[in-house]
């Protein structure tokens, strides 16, 4: 343990600090009638044992506290290329209605020069393995995203991605979790039909099933069989689709559900540990498959950026440590928490009241992001309103990122907070609390066992209640919501329009049900019966990899609902906890 300051020097500082507290500080507090908590100051005394090489090191190297990379990455295409039209939403999360509706939407975007693969949103029935004609799905078809019932539907969506946008030239992003293996199977068949080798496919299914039980809710089966499906996908992708990400281990949903910074880091690292362990147990080489387990660390639900910056730094070095010490990763790049740059803006940091203030919030978080290893990519200020972002919001968003990068030049220094007495003390604090949670979860038998016991769910519920209680009683101030809401304070109206066709949205359900009827008439139902029986049998064998059988089943146009029903016969369903 090295010392930055000698014992003598620290003693001197300690003495002077005591004098200051009794004298200048107390006098100021008295004069201003101020609270100590709102007037803090940090000194070398707060980081007595700081070891630079152990805690910080250098950017792009273990322990990655300073960031994943040793040089800043360029801005996104939106901010770099001002020839692009604002109307074009390149990578925005999109999709609605029937597959035809979504295909047509992407074609529209391409007519306005979109040149990338889809960032696809699915409707809730699809995310829950329910067909569009299932009575339980009443009212939900095509609402939160596109309805996908079978391979036919994926084929229709991807009619928008051909020629110079074919599957080997784009990357697909899917926010799909419980049925990710089935959707991926459909994609594999689609590639096969187009004569594209699986080894060329690039994409990222969200596929982080543990966070579903904890925060997001789109689970189908109980945790253990769901992890088995994830394992099957992990093994299959590592062997056949090495350029495909296995999942993104998510953070923001867990913070939105109520976890604070420490809880978030502890829970997410524990989830990551469970996934990595599963891959190792399945016989995979950790240095190979961990490259395909990026994190999705955009998470800020508050504007208290000091803590968020500390969270990002603590997270990176904790994960690096886990990979090196717990899993013995040999390749130093395996210790890098991919995707763990910055702090990210979450819609949950914003409110619908006095919406323009969200721009201020986004910029504050964007600044923090730039200072925490991110790219200062923000979210549009009208995010809390209905779906879609106005053109004004989009332009302000891009310009804010440009100003942070090119005018303020905040990205020109890597980890500028390194060595700050305050930030290092805060990072240590977040880290210590997060380790406690990891140990707690370890004692319970790991993340899966903790999920079964509802542990993380309750951590989030408690946290959410605390957060909201403080807003309700004014302890936590939210400008324009619980404070500064006088009669003379203006709420500027915002002009927006929905990005999707209203008529299509209205009648998507009946059209998709008709699509499904048509499909069931035209396919070979006998083959499907045989396939599903085989799938059911294999599901009973814990050691069998289900991916090849899923591929066979989707190729015959078995529906998502039919496949999931077969699996449910073996795995059962899961009903989450209440209160």
């Amino acid at each position: 343990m090295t010392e930055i300051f000698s014992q003598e020097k620290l003693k001197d500082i300690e003495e002077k600090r005591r004098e200051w507290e009794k004298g200048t500080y107390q006098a100021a507090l008295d004069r201003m009638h101020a609270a100590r908590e709102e007037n803090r100051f940090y000194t070398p005394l707060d980081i007595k044992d700081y070891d630079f090489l152990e805690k910080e090191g250098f950017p792009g190297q273990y322990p990655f506290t300073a960031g994943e990379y040793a040089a800043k990455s360029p801005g996104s295409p939106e901010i770099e290329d001002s020839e692009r039209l604002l109307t074009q939403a390149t990578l925005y999360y999109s999709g609605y209605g029937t597959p035809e509706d979504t295909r047509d939407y992407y074609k529209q975007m391409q007519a306005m020069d979109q040149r990338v693969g889809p960032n696809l949103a699915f409707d809730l029935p699809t995310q829950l393995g329910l067909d569009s004609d299932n009575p339980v799905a009443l009212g939900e078809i095509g609402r939160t995203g596109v309805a996908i019932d079978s391979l036919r539907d994926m084929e229709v969506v991807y009619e928008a991605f051909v020629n110079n946008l074919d599957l080997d030239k784009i990357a697909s992003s899917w926010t799909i979790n419980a049925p990710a293996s089935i959707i991926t199977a459909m994609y594999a068949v689609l590639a096969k039909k187009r004569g594209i080798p699986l080894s060329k496919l690039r994409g990222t299914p969200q596929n982080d099933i543990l966070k579903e039980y904890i925060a997001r809710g789109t689970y189908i089966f109980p945790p253990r069989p769901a992890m088995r499906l994830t394992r099957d996908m992990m093994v299959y992708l590592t062997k056949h689709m090495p350029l495909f990400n296995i999942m993104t281990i998510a953070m923001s949903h867990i913070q939105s559900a109520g976890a604070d910074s420490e809880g978030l880091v502890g829970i997410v690292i524990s989830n990551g540990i469970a996934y990595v362990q599963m891959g190792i147990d399945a016989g995979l080489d950790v240095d190979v498959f961990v490259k395909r387990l990026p994190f999705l660390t955009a998470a800020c639900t508050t504007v208290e950026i000091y803590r968020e910056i500390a969270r990002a730094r603590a997270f990176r070095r904790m994960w690096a440590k886990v990979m090196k010490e717990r899993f013995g990763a040999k390749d130093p790049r395996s210790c890098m928490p991919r995707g763990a740059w910055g702090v990210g803006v979450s819609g949950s940091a914003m409110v619908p009241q006095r919406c323009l203030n969200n721009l201020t919030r986004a910029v504050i978080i964007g600044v923090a992001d730039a200072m925490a290893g991110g790219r200062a990519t923000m979210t549009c200020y009208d995010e809390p309103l209905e779906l879609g972002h106005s053109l004004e919001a989009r332009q302000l968003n891009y310009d804010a990122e440009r100003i942070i990068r090119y005018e303020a030049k905040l990205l020109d220094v890597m980890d500028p907070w390194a060595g700050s007495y305050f930030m290092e003390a805060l990072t240590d604090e977040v880290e210590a609390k997060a380790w406690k949670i990891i140990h707690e979860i370890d004692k319970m038998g790991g993340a899966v066992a903790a999920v079964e016991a509802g542990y993380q769910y309750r951590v989030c519920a408690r946290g959410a209640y605390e957060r909201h209680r403080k807003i309700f009683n004014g302890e936590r101030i939210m400008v324009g919501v619980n404070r500064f809401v006088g009669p003379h304070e203006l709420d500027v109206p915002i002009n927006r329009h929905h990005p999707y066709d209203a008529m299509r949205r209205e009648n998507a359900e009946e059209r998709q049900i008709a699509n499904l009827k048509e499909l069931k008439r035209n396919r070979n139902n006998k083959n499907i019966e045989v396939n599903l029986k085989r799938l059911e049998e294999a599901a009973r064998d814990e050691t069998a990899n289900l991916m090849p059988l899923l591929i066979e089943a989707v190729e015959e146009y078995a529906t998502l609902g039919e496949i999931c029903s077969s699996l449910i016969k073996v795995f059962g369903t899961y009903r989450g906890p209440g209160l």
Partner: protein
Amino acid sequence: MCLRLRLHGISSARRPLPDNTMEKQMDNGRRIRVLLAKPGLDGHDVGAKVIALGLRDAGMEVIYTGIRWTPEEIAEVALQESVDVVGLSSLSGAHKKLFPRVVELLRAKGMSDVLVIGGGNIPEADIPYLEEKGIRKVFGSGSTIEAIADFIRQQLI
């Protein structure tokens, strides 16, 4: 079909009731019973959890079902638990189909006097329709526990 209702207590969030709970009780002295439920497929339940814990702190007996309950299941639990209030939460856009369905089922079970309220990210434009269908009031994002609790008491007492 067996309805398994798992009631997980969050003991650290429960505080001893304040002494002035008398005003928070029904005329006959018992506490107001509330069922909070999420019909349909939507899984966002931070709001429901927060309101459950908040109304409990405000002196009511609250059951929160958890996510993904059908309107039929919700009406059945409301009957079994003899609740005074049913609060429905949805953020997936399916509220216009699902909330009225719950009201319909409650009425069919002879529970027309149960107060039904709703919440979630319901567009302003949909509120008149829901009120017409028997949702007495919609408490959108930003509503306080105090406002909800006061409304409930006013309506019932």
